[in-house]
């Protein structure tokens, strides 16, 4: 019996030992297979594979007709291993380091001394740049030199084939990614994600057959399509540059909007930034002032106010106003830009002569809130639907805190600020029978899989009645035929409706001698198709809106010619300017 027990316990011990061993093995197995599996797998991969970055391509920015404004391209960095830099034998003759660097310098344009400094900075290191971002043809020339210590690295880069055309809109990329413009604010669409490919390769660098394992596929970026017409955009920028230089202006903007759908066909800024070389541009000029720089618009506001007053039934085109030489309001006087005796102007006359007093009198009796609502209904004080990077909503004071003087001056564009884009939206509404179609700059983002996102808002808003809008446009046409800037606003063969504006620039709360001059208008006046606004900031050779006229008529003339709008066949309506 005892012997049996002894036998039994010996067997049990064996069993227990076996179970413990199995347990230990299981634990180790779990440790290797589960706990350490990722690390071990990676270590194994690292031993037998090389990894390669698969670059995802950042999306392209196109204009409305498919012209490339920004694209990703391949550039190459020429690198060197300083510790191997030495003379070498090529085709039987010895090539010295200086000779080799001179050859590289010849092809890349980088100074020989610069490259030598890069090598001498740390002669024992394994890596230094000789030239950055060279093109494929330069790379091939360098490779043909057959210098044993020179290498190359792929550097995905961004170029802008049209240079400064739409440069302020498109923006640019820096070393840390997108810096401004569409590149920045549409980055979510454009951005790509790099992938990685692992494969095994032999000693000679050739891939071992069948060994490629793509572990992470790169994600290609989406393409952005703008509503901009790059040829028209070029013309607008060129016009701004020519006129801006002539006027000695600090800056200028221009916008062309298709009235029917609110598409921005050109949004020009001068000085224009060339995204291929931003270093030569002042930081203030890198963005798009057209969206980001609000200013007191002055008289280009008047058609908007008059359209609303017509819509409310407060006035008609021929409402008789007796306009004094000055108009007392809130303890101050409102004056016109030119001295005059008491005038008997109609509403049309008030607009033709751009009378501040006349507009104040026409709007008389409106409360602060009514005036605020009027301006707000046109989108004043709110960013446009473009929602551009750094877009400014402008300044529209809360009605509760506005003094009586400002309540009046707001009606003719003082004491309130807007961007050129907001004014372009106002004129689009006037030209489109009082219906605002939200401005569009980005018509969509096409993802790599073909789906379209970022589609623009298109909900129309009836701001004023079609009748009120049309009557305002008719009166604006007389500004072009009868107003003081008529000689520079007319476009032969076409009926044009426009309004000029001269705004004094306030400095430290006081209006000084600096001006912002602008012209905004519509053509053809009988059936407006295009709205154009041009603005010049701080001109030194011409301080009235008259001087913005040539740029307006040149640009509008080009728009009509470019889009094949047939010359007008009807006559300007005959509206009385004065009354007896």
């Amino acid at each position, binding site marked *: 019996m005892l012997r*049996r027990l002894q036998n039994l316990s010996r*067997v049990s011990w064996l069993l227990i030992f076996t179970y413990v061993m199995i347990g230990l093995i299981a634990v180790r197995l779990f440790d290797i297979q589960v706990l350490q599996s990722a690390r071990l797998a990676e270590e194994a991969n690292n031993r037998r594979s090389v990894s390669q970055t698969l670059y995802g391509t950042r999306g392209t920015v196109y204009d409305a007709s498919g012209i*490339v404004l920004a*694209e990703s*391209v*391949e550039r190459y960095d020429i690198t060197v291993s300083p510790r191997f830099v030495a003379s070498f034998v090529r085709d039987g003759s010895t090539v010295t380091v200086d000779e080799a660097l001179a050859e590289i310098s010849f092809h890349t344009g980088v100074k020989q001394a610069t490259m030598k400094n890069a090598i001498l900075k740390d002669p024992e290191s394994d890596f230094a740049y000789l030239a950055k971002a060279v*093109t*494929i*043809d330069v790379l091939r020339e360098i490779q043909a030199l057959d210098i044993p210590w020179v290498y190359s690295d792929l550097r995905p880069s961004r*170029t*802008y*084939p*049209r*240079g*400064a*055309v739409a*440069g302020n809109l498109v923006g640019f990329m820096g070393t840390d990614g997108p810096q401004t413009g569409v590149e920045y604010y549409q980055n979510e669409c454009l951005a790509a994600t790099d992938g990685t490919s692992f494969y095994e390769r032999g000693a000679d660098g*050739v*891939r*071992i*057959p069948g060994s490629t394992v793509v572990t992470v596929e790169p994600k290609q970026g989406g393409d952005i399509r703008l509503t901009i017409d*790059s*040829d028209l955009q*070029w013309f607008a*920028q*060129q*016009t701004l*540059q*020519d006129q801006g230089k002539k006027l000695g202006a600090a800056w200028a903007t221009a916008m062309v909007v298709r009235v029917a759908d609110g598409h921005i066909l050109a949004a020009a800024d001068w000085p*224009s930034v*060339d995204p*291929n*070389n931003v270093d*030569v541009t002042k930081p203030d000029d890198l963005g798009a002032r057209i969206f980001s720089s609000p200013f007191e618009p002055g008289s280009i506001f008047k058609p908007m106010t008059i359209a609303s007053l017509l819509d409310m039934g407060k006035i008609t085109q021929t409402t008789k106003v007796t306009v004094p030489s000055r108009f007392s309001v809130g303890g101050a006087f409102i004056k016109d830009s030119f001295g005059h005796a008491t005038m008997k102007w109609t509403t049309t006359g008030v607009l033709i002569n751009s009378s501040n007093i006349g507009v104040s009198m026409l709007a008389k009796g409106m409360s602060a809130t009514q005036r605020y609502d009027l301006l707000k209904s046109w989108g004043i004080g709110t960013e446009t639907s473009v929602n551009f990077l750094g877009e400014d909503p402008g300044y529209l004071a809360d009605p509760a805190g506005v003094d009586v003087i400002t309540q009046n001056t707001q009606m003719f564009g003082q004491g309130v600020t807007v961007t050129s884009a907001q004014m372009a939206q106002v004129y689009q509404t006037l030209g489109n029978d009082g219906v605002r179609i939200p401005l569009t700059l980005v018509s969509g983002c096409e993802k790599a899989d073909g789906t379209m996102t970022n589609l623009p808002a298109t909900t129309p808003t009836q701001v004023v009645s079609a009748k009120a809008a049309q009557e305002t446009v008719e009166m604006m*046409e007389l500004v*072009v*035929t009868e107003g003081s800037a*008529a*000689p520079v606003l*007319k476009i*032969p*063969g*076409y*009926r*044009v409706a426009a309004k000029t504006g001269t705004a004094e620039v306030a400095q430290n709360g006081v209006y000084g001698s600096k001006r912002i001059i602008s012209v905004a208008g519509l053509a053809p*006046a009988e059936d407006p198709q295009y709205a154009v606004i041009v603005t010049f900031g701080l001109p030194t050779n011409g301080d009235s809106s008259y001087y913005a006229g040539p740029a307006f008529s*040149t640009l509008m*003339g*080009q728009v009509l*010619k470019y889009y094949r709008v047939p*010359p*007008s066949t*009807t*006559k*300007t309506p005959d509206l009385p300017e004065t009354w007896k």
Partner: protein
Amino acid sequence: MSAVAAGGNYATQRPTATPMSSRASLTAVSRGTEAVHNRRLKRSIVVVLAIVAVYLLRQFVSIGVAEGAYEIASLNQQQVNLQRDAEFASEQLRVMDSPQNLATMAEKLGMISNAQPAYLRLSDSHVFGSPSGAEKTGSGAVPIANDLVKQLGVSSVVVPATESADEKATTVQSETETGAVASGSEIPAPKTN
């Protein structure tokens, strides 16, 4: 295991071998043994040959695959190079196509941009605008920047026009009243039909 559980119930004797005498009636067939031997030898040779053949075949296939790998690598490289050429060419083309480059080339040819066009309405021969030739203004417009023109070495293929042609490429045509063409106002028009 079951033997252990039975506890000491072991066999007491080893089993004895079956006596040969029980198979005494069987005799060896000497003639047949050689034939079998030959057959086996043949079979072995066939098998060895087959193994060698399979091995050689495998080697050839392997060499073929390896060579294919080199060919694929070289063709891939060629494809990449050609793609890069194509991309670079289209990149250059896009820069050449840029309005800045076109404007510069046009000016080098002696062309002048005319911002004030004139129109002839066919229905009544009405002339809009002032149909006069464009004058060259100063040194010509400075095109807005495009650094890529320089970066990519896109150079103008146009030979500059001669000095005389460059100086004045305008022919002043019949003058009508400049700037008098107001929207809707009456303009004296030649009645040619």
